[in-house]
């Protein structure tokens, strides 16, 4: 599993740990992630995958350990600062601006990327190029038809797609997807997988993905990390890891039906 280590890691964590009272949700996780690689994180429910994401993107403060982005320590930085350093994040439980329209949701991400937030003397709708970019991302997730719908009234699956569009619009160099296809209908899943494929092809992007659907994992993963009770218990090529006893027992249960 040293295939990647020639490069400089774009994201690394050292002994990253968080405790909630007596419960250790993420336990001394040390890992490096490299550009041009898609890493899938798997593990049973409650293994600490989402919490690990939260520690990396700054939503939760680590109890101990550290996080580095492109070699810079960011452990003490808040989520906003980390985002501006290149981390982007789609959430497991949908997390949008429910009373704004679909296009406005994406535009906020485009605008954050463009750094135009503090401008208070120009008119929002006069920034045509930002809107064009937002529309571009909506098209990519097949949501243009819903451009002006209030987000709160979208169906669950559409909200998941918007979640992906917002992440793309942020154009981060490190992308983290938390179960992007959960609740998405069978015919829409390929659309999102395609998108992730495209992103992956870009050699500068580091992609982290949490996913429970084994077919998706097999289709996308360059590398798999297994978390169990907060501890990193396996890390390696998809084939090796999937065959390991721990994954078979604790995660997959009995061998998958064909």
């Amino acid at each position, binding site marked *: 599993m040293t295939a990647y280590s020639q490069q400089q890691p774009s994201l690394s964590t050292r002994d990253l740990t968080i405790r*909630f009272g007596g*419960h250790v949700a993420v336990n001394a996780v040390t890992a490096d992630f490299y550009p041009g690689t898609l890493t899938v994180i*798997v*593990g*049973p*429910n*409650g*293994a*600490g*995958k*989402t*919490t690990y994401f939260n520690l990396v993107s700054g939503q939760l403060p680590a109890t101990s350990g550290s996080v580095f982005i492109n070699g810079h320590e960011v452990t003490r930085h808040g989520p906003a600062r980390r985002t501006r350093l290149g981390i982007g994040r789609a959430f*497991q*439980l949908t997390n949008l601006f429910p009373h704004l329209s679909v296009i406005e949701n994406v535009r906020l991400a485009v605008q954050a990327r463009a750094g135009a937030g503090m401008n208070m003397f120009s008119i929002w709708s006069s920034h045509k190029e930002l809107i064009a970019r937002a529309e571009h991302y909506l098209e990519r997730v097949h949501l243009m038809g819903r451009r002006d719908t209030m987000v709160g*009234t*979208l*169906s*669950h*699956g*559409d909200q998941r*797609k918007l979640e992906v569009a917002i992440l793309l619009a942020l154009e981060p160099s490190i992308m983290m997807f938390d*179960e992007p296809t*959960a*609740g*998405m*209908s*069978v*015919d*829409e*899943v*390929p659309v999102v997988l395609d998108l992730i494929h495209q992103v992956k092809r870009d050699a500068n992007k580091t992609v982290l993905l949490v996913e*429970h*659907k*084994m*077919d998706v994992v*097999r*289709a996308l993963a360059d590398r798999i990390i297994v978390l169990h009770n907060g501890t990193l218990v396996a890390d390696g090529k998809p084939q090796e890891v999937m065959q390991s006893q721990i994954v078979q027992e*604790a*995660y*997959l*249960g*009995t061998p*998958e*039906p064909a």
Partner: protein
Amino acid sequence: MLERQNQLDPLLTLSGVHTHIGQYHILQGVDLVVPRGGLSVLLGRNGAGKTTTLRTIMGLWQASAGSITFDGQDITRMSTPDIARAGIAYVPESMAVFSELTVRENLYLAARSGALDNARVDWICGFFPALKKFWNYPAGNLSGGQKQMVAIARAIVEPRKLLLVDEPTKGLAPAIVQSLMAAFRELKDTDTTILLVEQNFNFVRTLGDSVSVMDDGRVVHAGSMRELADDDELQTRLLGLSLDSHQ
């Protein structure tokens, strides 16, 4: 096939149900029959109206036309608590766990009789061991999959005639999906009828007895699961499934 099911004494029948949300016309004449005993599956693309159908059954949205009959009783205009008391349990799409309450309290509330049946709780925890571990933990702090377990456990903590379940497998690890499958099988054996909304066709293909497919606020296909599972062409047409999309 359909005829035979109907003769089998339907537990829940929706006929010509229309639902409006604000100014939007979402359900446009849904006809749906859930036979007594067994597991019915409701499939459909995103935004087809599956969730809206379940919410309309529960009385969380008011049907603007049509009628809903449950166990011989017209529940179209009944209030949500009364519908629940008639014997329907609901696992919503958003899970809706009470985040300030502990896991125990969440289940305790769902036990309308006023006390938790320990044997049944142990049975449930057999499928979802995490619940035992986090028994006295505020449910809001659980992981996504664990919340889903709480939501399901809450619906089965006491026996009910009908279970409405909205996408239970999303976010569940494969091992737990297996447990869930086992749980549904055992529930079926105890005379509980289940209406399941699901995207994960692999999960329902072996489990389901009958199946309905929705599109654009209508039921566009109803039949037995075997029929659909065996017919690749029908799958492609109804669900947009093709073999290579779930290699």
